[in-house]
C-alpha cells in the first residue's frame, strides 16, 4: 500500500514539475525574444538619420 502511494506521489511531482518546466521555459524564451526585438529596435532607430 505504501509502495503504491510513493509512486502516486512521484507521478504527481513529475506532472507538476513538467508543467512548470514548460511554463517557465516558455517565459524565459519570451524574455529572450523581447530582448532581441528591443535590440533590433535600437538598431533601427539608430539607423534613422
Amino acid at each position, binding site marked *: 500500500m505504501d509502495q*503504491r*502511494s510513493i*509512486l*502516486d*506521489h512521484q*507521478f*504527481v511531482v*513529475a*506532472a*507538476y514539475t*513538467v*508543467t512548470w518546466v*514548460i*511554463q517557465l521555459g*516558455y*517565459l524565459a524564451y*519570451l524574455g529572450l*525574444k*523581447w530582448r532581441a*526585438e*528591443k535590440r*533590433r*529596435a535600437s538598431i*533601427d*532607430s539608430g*539607423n*534613422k*538619420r
Partner: protein
Amino acid sequence: MKKFALGIYVAIVVVLMVWGFYQAIYVAPDDALQGYVFRIIYYHVPSASVAFLFFAVSLLGSIGFLTWRRNRPEWAQLSDAWAVAGAEVGVVFCTVVLITGPIWARRAWGIWWTWDARLTTTLVLWLIYVSYLLLRRFAAGPQVQTLAAVLGIFGALDVPIVYMSNRWWRTQHPAPVFGGDADSGMKDPQMLAAFGWGMVSWLAWGLLILFLRYRVEREHQKNAHLEAMEALEAKI
C-alpha cells in the same frame, strides 16, 4: 503607471499560483477511487481550458485580421498579434495537457493513452496549431499574416469535425473513458475549491503570458514596419 499595474498583476498571479498549489496539495483530500494521484487534475484540466480558450482567441484574431486588413489596417495588425499570441501560448498549454494527461492516466487507469474523442481532438488541435506556427516561421514574404490567418480558419473548422468523427469511431470501438467520471464526480467542497483555485490561477497566469506574447509580437511588428519603411526610403 502601466508598468506599475503590470507589476501588481504579476504579484497577484504569483500569489494565486502559490495559493492554488497549496489548495491542490495540502487542502484537498485524496480522491476516493484514485488516491493521491488525482491531484494532477488541478493542473491538467485548467491547462486544457486555457489552451482551448486561447485557440479561440487565435481564431478570432485570424478572422479579425482578414476582415480589417483593407479598411482598418491598424486593427488588423492588433488582431494578427492576438492570433499569434493565442496560437503560441495555446500550444504551450496544450503541450502541458498532452504530457500531464498520460502521466495521470498511467497511474489512474493503467494506460498512457486512448483514442477517445477528447484526447484525439486535443492532439489534433495541437498538431494543427503547431503547423500554424510552422507556417508563420517558414513562409517568407510580406503576406505571411494573411496566409496564416487563412490557415487558422481552416484549422478551427476542422476541430468540431475531428470531435464528431472520433465520437462515432468510439461507438464502434468502445474504449476507456478518461476523466469522464473524474470531474463529474467531484462532490467534496474542498476538492471543488481546489479545482476552482486551479482554474483561476492558471487562467491568470495564462492571461499574463498571453499579454506578454502579444507585446512581443507588437514590438516585432513595429520593427518590421520600421525596416520596411527604411528599405523604401533607402538613401544611396
